[in-house]
């Protein structure tokens, strides 16, 4: 049986923990707001740039290595985006589990499957399973910046154009709302061209696409546009992941604060019961002592 003093110290320690989790929740909420603002504003740009590329591809006047798709890619690069810090619920565990399953189920299909890991949590996870990554990156949440994304994008793209890989996938947490995120696996390269503003091939209006006027020449435009597109997509996925991380941490800390509150309530109840019991015992002792003296 715990003594009164033990319970008192437990209550105060839980209270301290609750204070920390509450503060972390506040911090995450503030960071989430900024990250959310970022991602919501970036999405339309990322969407439109893809549709412009789709339109150019629909003219069938350009060919670019980044657009060429292979039916059965043999050599793939997988980017896994996690966070550097824990205490954010299932955020990292979900991603790592997904990435590992992806590896297990696909490793026999591909000749070569390499991983580029972003975030400490993925690096530790893969190290434990002895899957060596080709490259790693840290400190995403601190400064998810466009130049950083462009650097990663450039690296992937160079490897892709040199024929080192035939496809590039990216596994990340997509930001749905402050309390929910979803693990998504997206193919970044070759570029998916399914969307176009022109009519489908064979339908009336499809020939409009062939009349598209280019200023300057299409080859000059498409190269720059694709570079930009890829960097923007990487940046978008990273921003999504950062926003999702803050969201996950916020709800995890919210739960922790609530649980700590419940624990404090329970402990206080036990403490009061125990206190009462000890007072009753003391009273009985005093009265029975007095009775004995009278006797």
């Amino acid at each position, binding site marked *: 049986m715990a003594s009164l003093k033990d319970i008192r110290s437990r209550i105060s320690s839980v209270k301290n923990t609750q204070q920390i989790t509450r503060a972390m929740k506040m911090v995450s909420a503030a960071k989430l707001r900024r990250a959310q603002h970022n991602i919501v504003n970036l999405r339309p740009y990322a969407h439109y740039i893809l549709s*412009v590329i789709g339109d150019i591809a629909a003219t069938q006047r350009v060919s670019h290595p980044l657009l060429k798709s292979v039916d059965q890619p043999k050599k793939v690069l997988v980017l896994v985006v996690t966070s550097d810090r824990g205490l954010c619920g299932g955020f990292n565990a979900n991603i790592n589990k997904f990435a590992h399953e992806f590896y297990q189920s696909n490793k026999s299909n591909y000749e070569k499957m390499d991983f580029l890991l972003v975030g400490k949590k993925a690096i530790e996870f893969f190290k434990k399973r002895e899957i060596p990554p080709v490259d790693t990156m840290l400190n995403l949440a601190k400064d998810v910046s466009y130049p950083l994304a462009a650097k990663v994008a450039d690296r992937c793209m160079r490897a892709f154009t040199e024929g080192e890989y035939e496809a590039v996938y990216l596994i990340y947490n997509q930001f749905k709302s402050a309390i929910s995120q979803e693990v998504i696996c997206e193919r970044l390269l070759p570029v998916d061209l399914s969307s176009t*503003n022109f009519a489908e091939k064979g339908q009336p209006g499809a020939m409009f696409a062939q009349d598209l006027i280019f200023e300057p020449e299409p080859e000059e435009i498409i190269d720059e546009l694709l570079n930009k597109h890829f960097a923007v997509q990487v940046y978008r996925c990273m921003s999504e992941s950062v926003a999702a991380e803050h969201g996950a941490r916020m709800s995890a800390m919210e739960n922790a604060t609530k649980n700590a509150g419940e624990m404090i309530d329970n402990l206080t109840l036990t403490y009061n019961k125990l206190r009462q019991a000890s007072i009753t015992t003391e009273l009985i002792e005093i009265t029975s002592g007095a009775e004995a003296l009278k006797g």
Partner: protein
Amino acid sequence: MFLFSLVTPEKKVITDQEVEELLVPGFRGQLNILPGHAPLMTTLSVGILTYREKGSSTFREVAISWGYCEVTPKGVIVLAETAETKDEIDRDRAQEALKKAEKALMDPDLEPDQMKKFQRKMERARSRLELAAH
């Protein structure tokens, strides 16, 4: 009348706005787009983009820098690096940026890519000031 959208990486400036007329600083100079324009894809330079909303006779202006403009049968999409309306422009800051860029360009030992960077900065500051002066 056609639909016009202007987006930058930082924000969605205009979404599917119904406009009558559009002027963009194209790769080969000012480009006027009216309803029924042929499909076109062009890069943009630094300058002022002007558009007239449906049913309005006044032109609205936005300072943009680089990007792409695509005309499709469905509408016009402009993807710009930056886009600011007159109210958003900080004149003093633009003035300062212009001075700084001009000074940096005076340096004869400037690296070529640095030079390009400052030239871009100078152009951008100039177009901002031009719009602010209107």
